[in-house]
């Protein structure tokens, strides 16, 4: 990446694409996306981060509610976008399409992934998919108090090491862990923390071989694309949206 050499902490988001998605980034230094499964207390985290500085509307042309807000940290204006809560990014529901397109084409500077600490196995399904698309993410283990009440704790160091991204324990309803989340997000945005996200390994051998083969071809055609492997998987799955995006040349910039 050439940008890294020229400016170590510049925003990397794709402002042109973001504008198309209805987000004006003129007044913000960094764009932060908030993703996660439904029922993980995502909106509580959103409220804890932005306070009352938020407004709701719809995604352009869609009937999905969008909340956006902002906060300041160390003289940087952060713009926070609440993505629809989804179980996955692989199906083709409106919600998932929005969340996926935002991360894929909008390229937020940081994606915060909210996870229900008592149900991480199930939540990791979405986390691993997001980490295939973006390499700038922070995992927020929310509802920690509830998990502890049910005698479940998480070894966040191991989890962070496994996933290759910073992990922060939170209990948003009690405002616990929010300040740590804010500073971690800032460090990732400033590239003081460089993520090395986990890549899916569990595919069957023949499937893995096909993905690698296609991935190689994509990387040859689009050098420097960070999520070529994910695109390969989507092409094998005949994802009509991704095929269309390829034909439109949406992957060329950046």
């Amino acid at each position, binding site marked *: 990446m050439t940008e890294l050499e020229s400016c170590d902490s510049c925003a990397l988001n794709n402002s042109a694409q973001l504008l198309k998605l209805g987000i004006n980034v003129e007044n913000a230094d960094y764009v932060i996306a908030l993703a996660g499964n439904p029922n993980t207390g995502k909106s*509580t985290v959103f409220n804890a981060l932005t306070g009352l500085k938020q407004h709701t509307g719809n995604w352009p042309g869609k009937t999905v509610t969008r909340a956006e807000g902002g906060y300041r940290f160390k003289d940087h204006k952060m713009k926070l976008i609440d993505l629809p809560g989804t179980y996955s990014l692989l199906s083709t529901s409106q919600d998932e399409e929005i969340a996926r397109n935002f991360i894929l084409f909008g390229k937020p500077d940081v994606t915060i992934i909210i996870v229900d600490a008592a149900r991480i196995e199930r939540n990791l399904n979405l986390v691993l998919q997001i980490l295939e698309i973006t390499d700038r993410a922070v995992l927020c283990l929310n509802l920690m108090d509830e998990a502890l009440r*049910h*005698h*479940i704790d998480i070894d966040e160091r191991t989890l962070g090491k496994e996933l290759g991204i910073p992990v922060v324990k939170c209990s948003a309803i009690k405002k616990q862990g929010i300040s740590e989340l804010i500073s971690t997000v800032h460090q990732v945005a400033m590239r003081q923390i460089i993520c090395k996200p986990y890549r899916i390994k569990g595919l069957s051998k023949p499937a893995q071989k*096909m993905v690698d083969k296609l991935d190689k071809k994509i990387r040859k055609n689009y050098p420097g694309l960070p999520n070529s492997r994910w695109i390969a*998987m989507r092409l094998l799955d005949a994802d009509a949206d991704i095929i269309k995006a390829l034909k439109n040349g949406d992957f060329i910039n950046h």
Partner: protein
Amino acid sequence: MENKDIQDLLDLASELRWEVGENFHDTLVEGIYADAAHIAQKTEIKIGEPNPYNFERKLDQVLTSKKYGFPIMILILSIILWLTIQGANYPSGLLASFFLEFLHPILKTGASQVGLPWWLDGFLIDGVYLALGWVISVMLPPMAIFFPMFTLLEDFGYLPRVAFNLDSLFKKSGAHGKQALTMSMGWGCNAAGVVATRIIDSPRERLIAIITNNFSLCNGRWPTQILIATIFIGALVPDSFSTILASIAVINIALLGIGFTFLSSWMLSKTLLKGEVSTFALELPPYRPPNLWTTLYTSLIDRTLIVLWRAMVFAAPAGAIIWLISNIYVDNLSLANITIDWMDGFGLFFGLNGVILLAYVVAIPANEIVIPTILMLTVAHLNLMGAGDGVMFELESTTETAALLHAGGWTLLTGINLMLFSLLHNPCSTTIYTIYQETKSWKWTAFASIMPVILGFLVTFLVTQIWQLFH
């Protein structure tokens, strides 16, 4: 990149797809979950004995049980509706007296002092302003009570259980259990009910819920029902029973609405919508204490104010039109009177009359202004008052209203049919606009708007014919 390269890439992809088999999606998801299980196993620490979700299980067993599930549900819903209707009375009255009794005369005096011509004064203050004032004072309080309570139940986790309990009932008519929630939301406000259908993630069932939401008797229609039932049905029995009979009649209309919801849902799923994709999956999240203040704030902003704003945008021009048709004269007759005469024959055919039909045409922005418009048009039509035409009003007592309506030629049949038509007619313009926003389809918007009117005419027509068989 060259087009040829892209084509090559896609060709390679489909070639490999043939090799890997058609269920690559399964392979992919299984692979991701395998990794997830692996990571979870490494990082989850169980502290001592696992603590099962005993409290939640017990609560669920009660809330979804055959014995207690339905009674609890009905109890909670009744409490919410009662709180909404009763609790809204006082603030509604306050707002109304502020806007209509306090501010209106001041504005009128101010206008005459400034020297506004009578027509501009009438158009702006008697037309636009009065309609706005009316809409705000009757719509705002109930919504501000209903929506936060609903959101609190949603955040607590109770609403998915309601959907779970009622799903088998809704499934029979091809609908989703969550439609129970949007239907109840519709009793607050149809526009909000339509927005609430976003919780239904299955496309077919969502369309069904949107189209049939209008059969939920909304907040703006309850007062009409209660007033007409008191005047025409309550009067059939001695005074001591009249309130009970009138209430039974109104409840029956609401139940009839539910009946029509099921019937039309079933017909839609069997005909027009049978090709839409249908998926069902309902997560029953753990019970969690709701965040009171955030809920109050967001439900006020997200739901109440947005709906109110839309209603105001539509009410203002309607107020203007109501004033105009009452004050523009052709051949010594106001436009309103000409239209009423013209529509009267048609109206009688359905056991209604010209005044009611015209009121429903001009009061399309909000059901709340139907009764004031009917009263105003009746007075204008009977030529009871010369001045002040085009001014909506409500009478102090039910007796006065009854006397006026009887003078306008209303019978028991008119009353019954008005109650039916109030249930079965086009959604208000706020709801129509919302339906378009939610479906992005003119076809479904038009269908959802026209179908209930046709149904309304059909039902009132049949009632009238049957009535005539016995009279």
